[in-house]
Each structure stands twice: as structure tokens, then as C-alpha cells.
């Protein structure tokens, strides 16, 4: 029934054009085109920069040409043919440019439009009058489209919905937004019994490609296909070693000590990207590199989420055309745009996961056959161990999965309000559509009714004294008719919730970037800080804008941004524990050899990785004062310092699991005796700290890590509350409980401002079964605590040997945790008693 691709007109037209460019189609592109003309849906698995855009876009053109072989060049205004969803605004321009080139070379009359937050109103109006054939859009703007009256008409001619960089969206609430939008578009077509709509995702390699495909095309009730671009890239990883590992800091540094080794690398290669984990650190690195090598001024740039958009665009533009020599960036440059001139990538600090590391490595050597080279620069010595684990994971192809989110009430509430401000929605029809998505397929009718009740009545109320109004019932549809509420909702569509940010401007005019309110509120006028690579003196805050002037001060504070600290992935944790195994066995071999050789000769190692060899002195010290645990061992250290009594535990499971485990352990200990803990954690382990001795020994330790009553203990350890509180801000903003205010208009809405933690306390006390509150808790369980990972860990611990040591000094393992400043509390003492202890005696 399907036509062989090679025999079609469209294929010949496209191949002729490619040939005129001295190019020919890749196999995976041809496969995708064939599926498209067959009307299939599915997923294309291809790395950035090897023609993935063409695999879908040219397929859409081929299909169109095949349908109109004679007059394809002349047909205008065919209506929307291809909806291109991309996670990043910055990508839209590049993609549009590439598409326009093809269209004009083929002399076709297709229009290519961009729709996102940057699209001006004139352009929007034009698109409304005549929708272009291709619309490149972000998930947020797509939802805004659904908030327009008569949106269904737009999609009536649509042939393909393409989701670019699906691996980035999957596993986030933006992915859920995409799922919902697809369900609605499919729904508008179902009424006409139309089955010509295709859905295509494009994704980099992740552990669960099959699931990624299913999540996308679920509403179509089809099986779908996966097309893999078989282009394996070689990756070479090289660590930057400190000269003397003994003198390299154990913790709390940014890797700056190794700056002298970085400069030659920068100077040698054409363009270098330096990936840094946090925005604060990237600011510092920028300054230090400039100090160390002033010649770079003018060809060095900084790129992170708080740098002004215009400046970021400028950086991207100049990376593109090779004018910059080095760019310091954060995850903000993880996505998208391929920067061909980039030859070298340096990763500073742990990349936390295999997939992320590979993606960053892939930023260099952007042609198909070039080897990607990535340097790794450790911020503390133990991180070298991570490189060894990463290398192992890469060679064994252990890549993380992106787990799609389930039952996000907040996104659903936002979506329903969106539909209510355009054409209204019929609850029965929308319910059918929603349970056809992956995210909400487990939702019960009862939960659905609770959601509808929540948005139509507003939860607990004092009947006659209430004027809550949001959804109204009219003509069998739920609608939002209040114009102010509708306008406020439109402003709030989206699932990316930032901390409350202030703009930073020069007094003399000129915009620098944004900064967290939390940080600026602690500054005094005259204090000097760095932002976007500039040294600024804080003057005052006016109308939600921080006014600054230039400063020549040498000392400055680097802002701390509270946003995203990624935890170590489960895969990497697993590899780390295995790595320690290697370390241990090598250590014993060396010991034996030394004994034979009468110890005076320095050890000859067979370490598979230089990184481990370099760390050898550190491991030796660890073994000497405490112990180096093997894969089947759990190390616990009890140390007393002037701060109090410390208990360190090292499961190597990533900071989130550690945070949960620390809370559970603290809770279980606090049932033995009345005690207060504060705790800290990093990706390797966690610490409990108390002002009294901690009663953990061989007699009770297995019990303390028992799987029994786990769920109960999680819920009782107050930390789940603390963690839920942090999640709640996002949930509440997305669900419309917290209004972020109109940009530049904050003042008018001041009486509607509210802090998330206050709202959390109020709801916990007065409406504990609130939907959004419950969602925060389940998010904590599923994502933050990674419940299943926690259980796996406890099971593993039960089956391994627990080793408790009592070192007389801080050990190399515990040091990075101890200096970590993120701390939490847990107490079984009475509040009064705690206060009394805190007061001066």
C-alpha cells in the first residue's frame, strides 16, 4: 500500500536540490521520509548538527510536493502544514533560516513563521490573518495559541507536529505541556474523523527512547516507529590534573587553582566552551581568566540564564561565526544551536550524569566524523574519581533515562484555565482527551471531579461571604469570563518558575541582567558585586529594579543563585561504587608488591585510569584514618569536632536521595533519644550533626537502615515537609495560586503578592487535602526522594557490610560534605527546650 519513496516526485525534487548543494541524503533521513509519506508517526534519534531538522522538514515538503506534483511551486496559503515545537527560543531563528533557504531554493510559496515570547504584536496579527505553512513555536506559546478564540480552525490543515529536542522536554513539566497540547490538537481533528495527523519527535540518545516515543504519540493510539541515525561519535576525555594531589583542596574551591593549566588549552584551540555548574561560579571564572590572561579581553564572553537576553543572543551569534575565543557558560548552552567553530570543551566540576557529559562533549568537533574532545577540571580532588566512573560508563554505554512526569495537577489546572479563556471546554470531552495522554492516563474520574471542583469553587469557603469566581458554566461549557482573570492567566502561562528576580540597571541607563531578590535584599548600598562579568556597585532598589553603577573595586561579592543543583544520576553513582572496588583491589595489589619489594620503591600501578592513580595518596590517607569502602560495603564515620558530634554516611547515591535518607535516619535516631540534628549532604554521602553524641553502633545500625516502615518514617520525618515546601512554589505558581505579577507592573498587583512558604503553611493548616499541596508531596516522593532509588539503596545496604569507624580527624571523604552549607533541621526535642539551649546561658 505504501509508495516507495524513490518513485515519488517529491523525493526527486529534494534529491536534485541536495545534489545541487553537493550533498546527498543520509540513510536515516530517507527512512524518515518514507515513514512520513506512509503517514506514520514516531521518533528520530539523532545527535545535534547532523541533519535532524531536515529529516522531518524535508519529509513534510516531499509529502506536499507528492500531493501537488504539478502546482507545488504556485500554491499559496495552504494553511498550517508543519508545527515545529522547540524548547529554546534561541533555536527558532536558526531553524527558520535553514527552512527558508530550502523553500526559496525550491521556489515554493511556503511561509515560515516564528511564534514565541519575542514575536511582536504586528507579526502575531499577521499570523492570525494568514497562518504560515510552518510555525516554529515554544511549548508556552503553543498554549497561548490554545488561549485564542477559534484556535481549532488553525489546526484543521495541519499534517505534522514535530517536537524538537524532545529529550530535553520529556521528564519536565514543559513536556507535560506538550502532551496536553497534542491531546487537544488531536482532539480537534477527531471530531472530523480525520486521521492524517502525524506526530514526530526528535531526540538525542537517552536510556528510554521507546518510552519517549510512546509518551509523544499516545493520543494517536498508534505504535509508531523509531528511526536511528547511526552516527557514533568518538569521545575523548582528558582530565586536568593538579601537580600535587596532596595540595589540591579537598573541598570548597572552584577549580580556580588550575587556571594556569586552562589558559594554554584556550590559546591552542580555535574556540573553547567552558561549562561551569552554577551561575555564581561562572562569574568568578570569567573574572579570573581575564585576570590571568588579559589578552583575551574582547574575545571572551559569559553566557548564563541571568545574563541579559540581548547579550546572550550576541554571544551565540558570535560563537556561530567564530569571533569568540572562549565562552564561559552554564547549562544555558547545553541545548541546541550548533557552534561549528567550537573545537574544545572544558567541563569544570562534576557533570552529574553520563548523558549530560556526552552532550557537552558533543559540542566540540561538530562534523560527523570528528572526535569530540572534552577536558575535565575537578573542583575538588575526589571529583577525579567521578571522571574514572564517567569514562567507564561511556565505554559501557550506560546512559540515563528521562522519566516522564505523571499526574501533574498543577499543569492540568493551568491548561484547563487556558481552554476556559478561549472557547471554553466541555468536561466530558476534555476528560477523554486527557486520559489519552501518558501523564494523566492513570487519573480517575474522582480525581478529575476534584480538579473541576477546585477550579470552579476554590476549595474551602465561607459560603455566603465568598466571592470566588473563576470558571463559569455557560452553554454546557466551562468558561472564564472575567477579563482581568483571563488576562492575568495569559501572563502566567508556562511551567518555568524562576525565583523572584529583580532587573539590574545602571543609574545612567542600560540593562545588565537579572538577579535574585534574595541576594540583593542582603546587600547594603555601596556593596560591590559581579554580574554578567561586570563589577558593579549597588546603589538602591527602585520599582523592582536594582540600580547600580560601575565600580573599579578589586573585591566583589559573587551572587549566589539558588536554582538548580543537579544530583548525581543513579547510573553514575553505581559506576562510582564500582570504581571504588577497583581502587580497593589495586591498593591491595600495590601493598603486596611493596611488601615484596621491601617498600622503599614507589608503587608501580596498573590503574586503568590516570585519575585513580593521581588520587592514590588520598585514598591511602582515607584508608589510614578510616576506610575505603568496596561496592558491597557501607562506610559510616563518627567524628567529634568543636562543632559537635558528626555522623558521616557514604552511599554514593546523589544528593537528593541522601537528603531523604539523612532525614529518615535522623528521625529514626531521634526516636531512640531526644536529640536535635542538622544535616548536610553532597553527591557522595551525608552528615548528621548534633550537639550530643549520636547513638549509632554495630548493635542498631542495620535496624536504622531497615526497609520496614519506610513510608511511615518518610512522612513523619519533618523533612518531607521542608522538601515539599520547596516544590510547592513551582506547583503553586503553575497552578495559579501565586501570581507573579505583570512585568514592570508589579506595583498594581501588590495586594495579590504572596510568598510560597506562607501559602504552604496556611494550606497545610487549613486545607491539608488541597490538590496542589498533595502534588508537592508526591513530587517530593517521586522525584526528589526518588522513592524507588531509596528502596534500592536500603535493600543494597541490608545486603552489604556496614563498617563504622571513629577517625580522630576529618577524612578526605567527609571534608566536602562538612563544608557544604546547605543544611536542614530535624528535632525530637521540645521547641521550648531548643530555644532555651540557643539562648546565652
Amino acid at each position, binding site marked *: 500500500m505504501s509508495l516507495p519513496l524513490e518513485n515519488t516526485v517529491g523525493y526527486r525534487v529534494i534529491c536534485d536540490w541536495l545534489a545541487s548543494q553537493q550533498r546527498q541524503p543520509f540513510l536515516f533521513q530517507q527512512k524518515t521520509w518514507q515513514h512520513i509519506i506512509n503517514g506514520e508517526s514516531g521518533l528520530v534519534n539523532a545527535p545535534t548538527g547532523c541533519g535532524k531538522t531536515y529529516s522531518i522538514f524535508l519529509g513534510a515538503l516531499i509529502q506536499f510536493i507528492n500531493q501537488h506534483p504539478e502546482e507545488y511551486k504556485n500554491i499559496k496559503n495552504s494553511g498550517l502544514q508543519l508545527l515545529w515545537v522547540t524548547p529554546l527560543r534561541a533555536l527558532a531563528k536558526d531553524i527558520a533560516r535553514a527552512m527558508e533557504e530550502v523553500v526559496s531554493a525550491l521556489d515554493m510559496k511556503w511561509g515560515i513563521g516564528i511564534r514565541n515570547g519575542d514575536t511582536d504584536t504586528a507579526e502575531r496579527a499577521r499570523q492570525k490573518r494568514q497562518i504560515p505553512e510552518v510555525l516554529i513555536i515554544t511549548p508556552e506559546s503553543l498554549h497561548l495559541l490554545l488561549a485564542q478564540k477559534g484556535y481549532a480552525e488553525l489546526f484543521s490543515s495541519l499534517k505534522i507536529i514535530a517536537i524538537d529536542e524532545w529529550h530535553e522536554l520529556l521528564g519536565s513539566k514543559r513536556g507535560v505541556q506538550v502532551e496536553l497540547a497534542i491531546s487537544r490538537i488531536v482532539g480537534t481533528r477527531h471530531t472530523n474523523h480525520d486521521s492524517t495527523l502525524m506526530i514526530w519527535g526528535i531526540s538525542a540518545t537517552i536510556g528510554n527512547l521507546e518510552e519517549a516515543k510512546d509518551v509523544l504519540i499516545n493520543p494517536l493510539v498508534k505504535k509508531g516507529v523509531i528511526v536511528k541515525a547511526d552516527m557514533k561519535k568518538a569521545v575523548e576525555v582528558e582530565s586536568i590534573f593538579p601537580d600535587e594531589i596532596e595540595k589540591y583542596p579537598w573541598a570548597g574551591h572552584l577549580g580556580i587553582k588550575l587556571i594556569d593549566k586552562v589558559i594554554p588549552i584556550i590559546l591552542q584551540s580555535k574556540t573553547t566552551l567552558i561549562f561551569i555548574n552554577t551561575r555564581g561560579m561562572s562569574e568568578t571564572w570569567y573574572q579570573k581568566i581575564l585576570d590571568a590572561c588579559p589578552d583575551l579581553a574582547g574575545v571572551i564572553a559569559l553566557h548564563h540564564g541571568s545574563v541579559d537576553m540581548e547579550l546572550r543572543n550576541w554571544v551565540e551569534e558570535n560563537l556561530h561565526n567564530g569571533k569568540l575565543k572562549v565562552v564561559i557558560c552554564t547549562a544555558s548552552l547545553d541545548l541546541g544551536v550548533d557552534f561549528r567553530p567550537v573545537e574544545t570543551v572544558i567541563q569544570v566540576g562534576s557533570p552529574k550524569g553520563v548523558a549530560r557529559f556526552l552532550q557537552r562533549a558533543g559540542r566540540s568537533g561538530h562534523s560527523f566524523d570528528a572526535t569530540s574532545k572534552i577536558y575535565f577540571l575537578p573542583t575538588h580532588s575526589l571529583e577525579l574519581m567521578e571522571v574514572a566512573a564517567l569514562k567507564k560508563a561511556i565505554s559501557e554505554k550506560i546512559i540515563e533515562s528521562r522519566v516522564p512526569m505523571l499526574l501533574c495537577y498543577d499543569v492540568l489546572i493551568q491548561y484547563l484555565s487556558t481552554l476556559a479563556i478561549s472557547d471554553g471546554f466541555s468536561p466530558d470531552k476534555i476528560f477523554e482527551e486527557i486520559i489519552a495522554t501518558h501523564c494523566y492516563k492513570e487519573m480517575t474520574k474522582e480525581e478529575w471531579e476534584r480538579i473541576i471542583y477546585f477550579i470552579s469553587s476554590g476549595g474551602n469557603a*465561607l459560603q455566603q461571604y*465568598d466571592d470566588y469566581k473563576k470558571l463559569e458554566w455557560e452553554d454546557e461549557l466551562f468558561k472564564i469570563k472575567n477579563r482581568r482573570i483571563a488576562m492575568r492567566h495569559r501572563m502566567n502561562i508556562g511551567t518555568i518558575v524562576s525565583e523572584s528576580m529583580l532587573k539590574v540597571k545602571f543609574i545612567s541607563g542600560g540593562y545588565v541582567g537579572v538577579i535574585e531578590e534574595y541576594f540583593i535584599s542582603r546587600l547594603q548600598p555601596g556593596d560591590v558585586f559581579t554580574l554578567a562579568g561586570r563589577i558593579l556597585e549597588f546603589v538602591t532598589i527602585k520599582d523592582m529594579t536594582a540600580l547600580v553603577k560601575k565600580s573599579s573595586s578589586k573585591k566583589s561579592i559573587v551572587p549566589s543563585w539558588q536554582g538548580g543543583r543537579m544530583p548525581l544520576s543513579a547510573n553514575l553513582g553505581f559506576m562510582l561504587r564500582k570504581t571504588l572496588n577497583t581502587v580497593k583491589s589495586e591498593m591491595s595489589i600495590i601493598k603486596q608488591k611493596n611488601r615484596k619489594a621491601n617498600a622503599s620503591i614507589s608503587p608501580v600501578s596498573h590503574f586503568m585510569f590516570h585519575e585513580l592513580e593521581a588520587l592514590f595518596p588520598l585514598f591511602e590517607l582515607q584508608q589510614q584514618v578510616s576506610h575505603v569502602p568496596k561496592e558491597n560495603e557501607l562506610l559510616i564515620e563518627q567524628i567529634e569536632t568543636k562543632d559537635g558530634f558528626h555522623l558521616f554516611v557514604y552511599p554514593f547515591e546523589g544528593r537528593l536521595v541522601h537528603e531523604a535518607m539523612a532525614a529518615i535516619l535522623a528521625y529514626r535516631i531521634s526516636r531512640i533519644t531526644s536529640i*536535635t540534628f542538622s544535616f548536610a549532604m553532597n553527591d557522595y554521602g551525608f552528615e548528621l550533626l548534633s550537639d550530643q553524641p549520636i547513638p549509632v553502633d554495630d548493635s542498631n545500625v542495620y535496624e536504622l537502615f531497615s526497609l520496614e516502615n519506610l513510608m511511615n518514617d518518610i512522612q513523619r520525618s519533618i523533612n518531607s515537609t521542608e522538601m515539599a515546601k520547596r516544590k510547592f512554589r513551582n506547583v503553586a505558581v503553575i497552578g495559579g495560586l501565586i501570581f507573579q505579577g505583570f512585568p514592570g507592573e508589579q506595583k498594581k498587583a501588590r495586594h495579590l503578592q504572596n510568598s510560597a512558604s506562607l501559602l504552604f503553611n*496556611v494550606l497545610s493548616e487549613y486545607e491539608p487535602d488541597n490538590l496542589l499541596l498533595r502534588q508537592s508531596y508526591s513530587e517530593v516522593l517521586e522525584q526528589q526522594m526518588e522513592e524507588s532509588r531509596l528502596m534500592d539503596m536500603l535493600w543494597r545496604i541490608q545486603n552489604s557490610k556496614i563498617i563504622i569507624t571513629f577517625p580522630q580527624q576529618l577524612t578526605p571523604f567527609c571534608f566536602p560534605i562538612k563544608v557544604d552549607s546547605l543544611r536542614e533541621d530535624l528535632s525530637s526535642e521540645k521547641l*521550648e527546650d531548643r530555644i532555651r539551649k540557643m539562648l546565652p546561658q
Partner: protein
Amino acid sequence: MFWEEEKALIVADLHFGKTGHFRKSGIAIPQTVYKEDLQRLIHQIQHFQPEKIIIAGDLFHSTENKELEMFQKWRKDFSLLKIHLIKGNHDILSDDWYQNAGIEVHQQGWIVQDFCFCHDLIDSSLMTHHSSLYSFSGHIHPAIHLNGMSKQSLRFPCFYFAKKYAVLPAFSRFTGTHLIKPEKGEIVFAIAAEKIIQVT
């Protein structure tokens, strides 16, 4: 806070009608908060049997809404009680409204014996004119931060008594707080769960 001599209950920052204001805008805050704030006030009135209430500003959160009808109904049940309101930045209802509700409004501040009541210390010109008076104010919703051994820390709303003035905690549970840093010799009472504890 109760002033025995004057038989006056002194409170600040009740923010009545705040939940209603949010709800009217389609933001679903449970109204039980408001109900319980009101009940707590009634409870205190029944306990102390005051002749008057002095409110150091922010009795109401915003413009009129149905929750204020509930307040008016309650007001009728306590018609003998005098209510003195020192206008706060949130008190933006019309003068007629206050008059109808039997609330005596003081614009800048109000002096009773040796004490001055105002809303925001910094804005109050009365305070500079009568620098010999001891002032009571609200507005900032004070809270205190306590640090302990082994890096523990806690935060509580509080009563704050400085040398020349005192700041009352916000009466409403639906308000944020602002940390104060008391100096030596100043007295702070923390509100910890159900107890009031002197911490400095």
C-alpha cells in the same frame, strides 16, 4: 497585648479580607484562615473583656469584599466595644465605611497617656514630634532568628521592645514576616507554637 489600666486590647496587622481579595481574583486561598483569625480575636475579647481595641494599622487588607460583610456582622455583636484604628498602608476603605462600622480612625497616630500608637514607625511624623513618648507600631510583621549549637536555626514571629518603641507581631496568620536584629538591652518575646518565650 492587653493594657489593663485602659482596658485596651492592642493588636496590629489583622489584614481582614485578604483571603477574600485573593479569591475574588480567582486565586483559591482557603477562607478558614480568615475565620480563625476572627475567632482568635473574639476569643481574646472574651478573655480580657476590654473596653476598647487599639489597632496599630492594617485592619483590612484591601478594597471591600464579602468577607468584610462578615466583619460587619461580627461588629454588631460587639457594638459596645470601641475600635480605634490607626490607619495603615493597607487601610484604603472610605471614611464613611469606617464610620458605618463604628471604627474611630486616626490618620497619623494616636496618643494615649505617655504612649503613641502608629502603624509604621519610619513614616510616623508623630514620633519625631513627640520624641519623649514610647511608641507602639506594627507594619513590619517582626520575626526573630535564633541560632544554636551545631548549626541549628529557628525563626519565630515576635514582640519587639526597643528602648523608645515596640513593634507588634502581625495578628493575621496569613502574612509574611520580616527579620529583626535586636540590639543589646532590647527585649524580644518569641511566639513559639502555643507559648510566648522571652529570648533576649
